[in-house]
Each structure stands twice: as structure tokens, then as C-alpha cells.
């Protein structure tokens, strides 16, 4: 057997759609996978098996395409890597405040990584370092293996507070990224129109942010960030200001948008349920100065529905496991805040 036949072809197609890489890397991986698959199938066939059955067995041995894509991603260089990062700030009083201490974190290509920790543990600082908005005091920050020297074009950042420009209407706000990157107005507006549709704001193009609800402003912010097609998406408690219903809707929409792009995500939140519902991996940060206390794999099936996944038996187990770690840190942080008040 020389040519790949239908069963192998299907498998490879599914694998292709799951791989979170660029075109060139995808082709390399697919060629490699195809070689292995064909080799396995030929060995089976040589032992006297029916050709179709041989192919079926070969693909079964390879495992689910989704899991395989994840293994490939984990073998490659991580999309984001922080090595021994420390961040100190100079307070107005002249003393140094350590926000992060000796933090190690790596996020694989296409991975959705949630970072949880008590308030003031340096979660937002972590994102500022990855984005290149702030340099680390010590240690290294790498994106795709390259040290970060400034704001990278590959990065998208959804801020905790409203960051849409109040003097631009929704269309201009969403079109800002392409416009700043030199796309002409007509093309930028076409792109923006498309993204406005994807986040469900069609009909509100001419509205200014102050005329929109908090949830709609967040959708505009999401479109504004995603229009640049960032390979690395940083989100800083993006939904914390929304009511519970809107929040669940937005979380589901985020998962849909993300699964279409396969970007690598760092999602900062203080809500453990949200973290588990969304992420492939949850990282717990200690009370400040922040450092990694533990990382937990979330092996819940995808595509997920955020409002239903909470009832999955595995969800409760993971929650229990992470909460045991997180609780101590939250208590430390709470005791400290009480001391400051008294």
C-alpha cells in the first residue's frame, strides 16, 4: 500500500484541524504522522489483515486526534515561557515591593492556561511581563523561544477594566488594530464588520461605548483584540465585572472563538470554577510575592458548555484538588488584608 486511503485521510484531516500551529509546521507534523500511520498499517496488513481493518487499527493506536495534537504541542517549544522571573516595583515611599518571585511558567502552543490566585498575588503583573509592557527585574520571558524585548505583534490583551476608546464608535474601535498596523480604511472596516458580527454586536456599529451595556463593551473589547488574530491571547479577569448570566454566555462565546483560532491563552481569574470550566491547565499562584504553587491538568472533554461542564463528576474532583491548595493562599492573603485594616 502506497497511497493513503480514506480512513487514514479522515484521521489526518481531523488532526490537521486540531493542530494549533502555522501552515509550515502543520505540514511537517502531518507528513511525519502520515509516515507513521502508513508504516503501522502496512505492518498490520503484512500480518495478513484486511486493508481497511489494518488502517482502523493503526489510527486507533495513534489515539484521538485531539489528544495527539496536544502531545505534538507539548513536545514543541512552549509558546510562552517564564524562567525564574522576579518583578519588583519601587513604591512612592522609596521601598521595593516584590510582586513576583522566582516564577516559572510555560504555556504550550494552543493551550488554554488559567492562572488563579488570591487578590494581589501578581497575576496581572504576570500578564504585563508576557505582553512586553513591563520588563522583568530578573529572569527571562520568552515567546516562541525568543526573549521578549517589547510589545510583540503576536500578543492580544483583554484588560480587566474597560479599555475600548470612549471617543471611537464600535466600528472604529474594532477597526483600530488593523488601522494601527497599516491596513487601509475600507479593508479594516470590512474586517471590523465581520468581527462585530461574530461577537453579536451587529447594528451597534455607530454607537459609542457609553451608550452600550457592560457586556456589550466587553464584546467590543473582545472583537478589538481578536481582529488582530493574536497567537498569544492574554486575558486579565475579563468577565469579572459582568453579571453571572452574561458571564456564562461570554465564556461560552470565548471558547467558541478560541477553538476556531487555536491561540495560546493565559486567562487570569480569581474564580476557580471559571478557570476549570475554560482551561486545559490551571496554575495556582501563591499570595504575594507570587510564585507557582502548583499546576493541574484539566482533562474535561471539549467542546465544552460552561454551564453544563460544572456538573461533570471530574469537575468536582479537580475543583476539590485545586481548592485544597488555593484555600491556604487565600487565607494568607485575607489575614494580611485584615492586618492592614486594623
Amino acid at each position, binding site marked *: 500500500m502506497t497511497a493513503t486511503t480514506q480512513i487514514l485521510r479522515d484521521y489526518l484531516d481531523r488532526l490537521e484541524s486540531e493542530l494549533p500551529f502555522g501552515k509550515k509546521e502543520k505540514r511537517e507534523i502531518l507528513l511525519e504522522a502520515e509516515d507513521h500511520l502508513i508504516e503501522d498499517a502496512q505492518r498490520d496488513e503484512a500480518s495478513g489483515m484486511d486493508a481497511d481493518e489494518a488502517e482502523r487499527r493503526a489510527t486507533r493506536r495513534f489515539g484521538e486526534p485531539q489528544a495527539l495534537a496536544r502531545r505534538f504541542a507539548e513536545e514543541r517549544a512552549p509558546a510562552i515561557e517564564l524562567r525564574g522571573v522576579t518583578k519588583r516595583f519601587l513604591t512612592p515611599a522609596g521601598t521595593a515591593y516584590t510582586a513576583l518571585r522566582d516564577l516559572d511558567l510555560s504555556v504550550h502552543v494552543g493551550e488554554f492556561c488559567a492562572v488563579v490566585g488570591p487578590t494581589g498575588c501578581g497575576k496581572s503583573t504576570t500578564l504585563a511581563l508576557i505582553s512586553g509592557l513591563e520588563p522583568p527585574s530578573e529572569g527571562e520571558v520568552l515567546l516562541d523561544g525568543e526573549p521578549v524585548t517589547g510589545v510583540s505583534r503576536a500578543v492580544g490583551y483583554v484588560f480587566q477594566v474597560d479599555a475600548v476608546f470612549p471617543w471611537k464608535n464600535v466600528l472604529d474601535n474594532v477597526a483600530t488594530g488593523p488601522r*494601527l498596523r497599516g491596513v487601509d480604511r475600507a479593508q479594516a472596516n470590512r474586517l471590523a464588520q465581520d468581527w462585530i458580527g461574530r461577537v453579536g454586536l451587529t447594528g*451597534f456599529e455607530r454607537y459609542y461605548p457609553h451608550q452600550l451595556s457592560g457586556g456589550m463593551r466587553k464584546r467590543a473589547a473582545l472583537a478589538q483584540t481578536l481582529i488582530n488574530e493574536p497567537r498569544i491571547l492574554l486575558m486579565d479577569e475579563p468577565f469579572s465585572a459582568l453579571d453571572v448570566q452574561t458571564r456564562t454566555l461570554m465564556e461560552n462565546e470565548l471558547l467558541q472563538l478560541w477553538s476556531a483560532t487555536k491561540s495560546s491563552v493565559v486567562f487570569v481569574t480569581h474564580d476557580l470554577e471559571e478557570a476549570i470550566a475554560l482551561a486545559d491547565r490551571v496554575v495556582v499562584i501563591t499570595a504575594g510575592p507570587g510564585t507557582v504553587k502548583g499546576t493541574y491538568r484539566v482533562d474535561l472533554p471539549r467542546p465544552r458548555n460552561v454551564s453544563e461542564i460544572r456538573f461533570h463528576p471530574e469537575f468536582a474532583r479537580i475543583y476539590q484538588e485545586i481548592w485544597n491548595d488555593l484555600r491556604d493562599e487565600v487565607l494568607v492573603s485575607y489575614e494580611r488584608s485584615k492586618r492592614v485594616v486594623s
Partner: protein
Amino acid sequence: MSVLSASSRSPFVGPEPTSSDRARAQARTKRRVLVNGLRVGVAVLVLGLWELGTSQGEAGLIDPFFYGRPSGIASQLWTWIQNGTAQGPLWLQVATTLEEAALGFLIGVGLGIVFGAALGRIRLLADVFAPYIKALNAMPRVVLGSIFIITIGYGIWSKVALAVVLVFFVVFFNAFQGVREVDRVLLNNARILGASERQLTTHVIFPSALSWILASLHTSFGFALVGAVVGEYLGAIHGIGIVIATAQSTFNPNGVFAAMLILALVAVTAEFAMTWLENRLIKWRPNSFTDIQHI
């Protein structure tokens, strides 16, 4: 693909107004009529008392020789309109003052924005010039008028210069503050979206500072008018300021009041123009300020 698809209809256009909505609208109109009626009433009361108090001449409650009287002010205005002032036709005096104020305003605003933005953006410049600017601002700048008349002369440019000096500081401080107060999150967002340093200025810093600058324009046209009139007062050939000075030196209080009335009209017109401009330029701002008046 969105779960919460928004309809294309404007969410602010509600259904037809109900009867209670109409009743509320009627109540609002009634109230507006009442307010305007009372406003006219206040003017009539003040002017009437003034006129009545001065009707007995020297023996009355108010001596019209010192305080003038409304009918006298009106007839003075009529005389000026018909026969012109001592300095020539009235329209020429108004036009001269307006020209000086407008030129001073434009130049002062331009310089104020440029310097305010530059010092707001460049920390070193701000640190170096801060003490000088504070010192200059603390000085009563009207006295500079004398210097300008000596160096530039009796023409309009000495008045323009005084107006520029007065306007500059108001706009400067607002532009400076506006640039400094730009939301850091918005700046960071623009940087992430791909803005260069120059694009940061045009896309974020200038629009954000604009509301501060526009707020300063309201007061600064008033200052421009002060500069022009005080400059004329110190020495000029034409202008409302010199008309006031002449009325003062001939013990003509009606003339002083009549000139003040003209200045007030000019200032109010300018104020309307400024509000119109502001609403045109920053239509993105919530209009709660104007709404409050009608509640």
C-alpha cells in the same frame, strides 16, 4: 454564532409614548415656561427698581449722576448707534475689540495646546520649565499691557499680545493636565493593538486631552476679551475699552454701562458658539450634563 444576537434596531427607540409619558412631557414644557417667565420677571424687577430709584434725580434713593439709569443707558446706546461714539462709528469699536480678542484667543489657544502637549509628553521639558511657568502664572499679567503698549504701540497688536498672554496659561495648564491624565490602560491597549509612539499621540493622547482643552476654551474666550478691553483701556485708537475709558473721564456712567452691555452680548454669543463647537467635537461624551438641566 453569537448567543445573544442583538437586533439591528436602535435599542433606545422605545415603543410609542404612553399617556403618562405625554403627561410628563407636558409638565416639563410647563415648567420651562415658568422658569423663563421668572427669569424675565427678575430682570424687570431689578431694572424697574433701578429706574424708580433714580427717578427723583439727586434727591432720590439712587443718584443717577453716579449710578446712571436704565433709560439713560438705552438712550446712550441709541445715540451711539445713530451718531457713533467719540471714537467713530459703534460697529468699528465692536469690530476692533472682537478682532483683537479673536486673534488673541486663536494664537493663545494654539500656543497653549502646543506647549501644554509638549511639556505633558516630555518629562524633562516639564521638569525644567515648571518653576518658570509657575512664576509667570502667579504674576498679575495684566500689567504686561503697559510693556506691550510701549514696545508694540497703540495699534491692535499690543492688545492681541495681552489677550494671548492671558489665554495661553489657561489653555496651557488644561492641555498639560489633559495629556498627563490619559488613562494608562487605554495607552497600554493602544500599544498592544500596534500603535507606534506617534500613533499613540493621535489615537489616544490627543482625543483624550481634547475634552480638557475644550473645557478651557469656555473660560479663555472671556480672558481674551479681558485682555483686549484692558489693553484698549491702557491706550488705543478704537475699541470698546477706549469707549469705556472716555465715558469714565467724562463722568458718564450711562456710557460705561452701555459699553458693558455690548461686551456682555459679545461674551454670551461667544459662549454659545463654544458650546456648539464642543458638542460637535466630542459627541462621544455622555450628555448627562445637559440632561440634568431638564430634570
